[in-house]
């Protein structure tokens, strides 16, 4: 076990835990700790091996390396890829330097982003939107033309809108780790890099749709949901079905009684809880296909949650009230 202190809050974590995981544990286990103590992430994904380290959004400063070697680390480190040492002290939101560096990262991520949120299906549940809102500048200092790419359909289900991509590598790792083949990759280099299949190829296998869920922005979107509705006008419900390919546990996004789209259920850090198969995701668009369990628990602060739940406390209250009412009726 190692004791690590982040922004003045201490926690004991198993050896090998990263600073980011430790920070998330802190937040998960201590309601009084500001959720922002856990650094924001754009490329790290706990369920994908070797993810993280690329976007630099989660940088923190290590002010004390460990009990044994108390020297501070000279440069900011990616908290998602740096493991804790016993006695380590880390500053995140209490360090103006870290916040400044993060602001820089956000600006870099945005200079070539099209900012086309009004016509982007990801709007409302976009991590870049949230990040920009919290850490970004109100005004851009970039006055050159932005990098653009053509949109491509990779197969019947997935739209690749490369212009919006922030190069998180998650979709590549999904293809490598949970599907049986990889057709798309990182091509070219530097700011000309792009996710592409190079020659047009349909990404085709049962789990390819998960790239949509892991994409932090609107670069990979669900063609079956394209322009159907703003996400905040749909109601996410936890639902399940008997599926031979995956767990069948998903979130269905309803408008009235129509299933407009199906996604994985997400945890509070926005990560998929269970991968789902393409059949569940793209083919089961009838409410009758699903056993609806309950409203999905969403406590992201972005617009996605605005239509449903004022905040987490309110949600919990409502549910317990309803449960009591139901119990009372019985």
């Amino acid at each position: 076990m190692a004791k690590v202190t982040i922004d003045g809050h201490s926690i004991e974590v198993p050896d090998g835990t990263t600073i980011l995981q430790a920070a998330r544990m802190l937040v998960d286990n201590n309601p009084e700790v500001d959720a922002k103590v856990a650094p924001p992430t754009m490329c790290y994904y706990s369920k994908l091996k070797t993810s993280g380290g690329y976007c630099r959004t989660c940088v923190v400063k290590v002010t004390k390396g460990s009990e044994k070697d108390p020297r501070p680390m000279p440069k900011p480190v990616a908290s998602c890829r740096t493991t804790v040492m016993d006695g380590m002290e880390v500053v995140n939101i209490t360090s103006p330097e870290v916040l400044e560096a993060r602001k820089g990262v956000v600006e870099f991520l945005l200079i070539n982003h099209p900012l086309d949120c009004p016509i982007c299906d990801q709007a409302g549940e976009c991590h870049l939107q949230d990040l920009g809102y919290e850490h970004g500048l109100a005004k851009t200092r970039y006055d050159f033309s932005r990098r653009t790419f053509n949109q491509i359909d990779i197969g019947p289900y997935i739209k690749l809108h490369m212009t919006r991509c922030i190069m998180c590598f998650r979709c590549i790792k999904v293809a490598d780790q949970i599907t049986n083949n990889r057709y798309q990759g990182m091509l070219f280099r530097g700011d000309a890099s792009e996710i592409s299949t190079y020659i047009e190829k349909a990404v085709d296998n049962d789990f390819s749709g998960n790239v949509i869920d892991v994409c932090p922005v609107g670069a990979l979107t669900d063609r079956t949901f394209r322009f159907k509705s703003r996400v905040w006008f749909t109601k996410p419900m936890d639902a399940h079905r008997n599926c031979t390919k995956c767990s069948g546990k998903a979130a269905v996004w309803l408008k009235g009684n129509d299933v407009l789209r199906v996604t994985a259920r997400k945890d509070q850090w926005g990560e998929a809880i269970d991968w789902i198969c393409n059949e569940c995701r793209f083919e089961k668009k009838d409410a009758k296909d699903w056993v609806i369990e309950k409203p999905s628990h969403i406590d992201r602060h972005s617009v996605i949650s605005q239509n449903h739940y004022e905040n987490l406390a309110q949600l919990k209250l409502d549910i317990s009230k309803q449960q009591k009412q139901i119990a009372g009726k019985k």
Partner: protein
Amino acid sequence: MGKKLLIHNDNVPGIATLEVYRQNGGYASVEKALKTMTPADVVEEVKKSGLRGRGGAGFPTGMKWSFLAKPEGVERYLVCNADESEPGTFKDRYLMEKIPHALIEGMITSSYALGAKTSYIYIRGEYFYVARIVEKAIDEAYAAGLLGKNILGTNFSHDCYVQVGAGAYICGEETALLESLEGKRGNPRIKPPFPAIAGLYGCPTVVNNVETIAAVCPIVMMGGDEYAKIGIGRSTGTKLISASGHINKPGVYEIELGLPVEEFIYSEEYCGGIINGRKLKAVVAGGSSVPILPAELILKNDKGEARLMSYESLSEGGFATGTMLGSGGFIVYDETTSIVKNLYTFARFYHHESCGQCSPCREGTGWMEKILHRIVEGQGKPSDVDLLWDIQRKIEGNTICPLGDAAAWPVASAIRHFRHEFEEYINHPERIKDVKHYYSVHQLAGA
């Protein structure tokens, strides 16, 4: 005349061949190490020598070697970094081209010290003809029993191969080089783990620069203590300096560390002064990524003491008034040089070479190039200088590998020392085209 240990024989006819190389004392270190020393002895001598990595970072080689993990039954590798791509640097090419066996000898001796059965020499793709020379030398070494099974009748067996790159500066970063050697994109790895623990194919690996490896031979021959007497302070031994730019005698020079910078630039033995008797304006002392210094700060430090060609002396004063020895890529600029235009060539370089993995470098290098392009074209805005400063500051230290720093430092130093030139470009764009002085005016014969 300073001591020479690496390229003292460069003018001996036929020195690239095994026969002539051996006649001139070549492969003596292999003989000595394999027959009279234990691997630990060799590591100890390298430690004592104070040899520091000659690729640019200057990390003590002996220490790097001692970090190498040695788990039972796991291969260890030595990889030679011959991906020389730092603008202003061409010493490794010179060494490999002129005396390829000096590298092979170092590879064998070093591999013996590290217990590596296999080594690779990763040569940048553009140096294709150099790779051919090195391969030929390797073939000769195999034929003479210096490589392969039971070298010189000892128990030590070793295979050495050349791998060519295909055009990517980033592969000079050791983990990007290993990725490339594994047949992948040259994306630097996120560290830890360091190569000493998990390098090539996940095995413990040491990556050393060509010159570093070649320096192991004289160290083994003369002993670490003797080697450490050469040079000055913690800058021990000799260093190959690639001299280029506006000087009379561009080329590769082996210097004893501690040589005064002024002597290096002006003496006939080295650069031979500035071309056409012009005045010195600025110097990039250690390859494009180190801070550029104006004449007054490169010849003397801020305390008025003569600056020396050594790791410590060049970095005296920190980045405010100092620079770094880096790879020893010494580029000299005369009074006609536009610092802004020169910086633009660097910014374009780093933009071109950014691998694209991490956001600050991927986006920042392109942004800086665009701004500098606008400035040199006479379209600069008054806010551009501060913007450039801010962008480089947000790249520096925030990237996966040192390429971000390498891209940021030239921008920061040019603004720090030559801000007025940027302002001149921005405030008086009409002068850019009229005054010859704003372009490098060294004309080619017949241009």
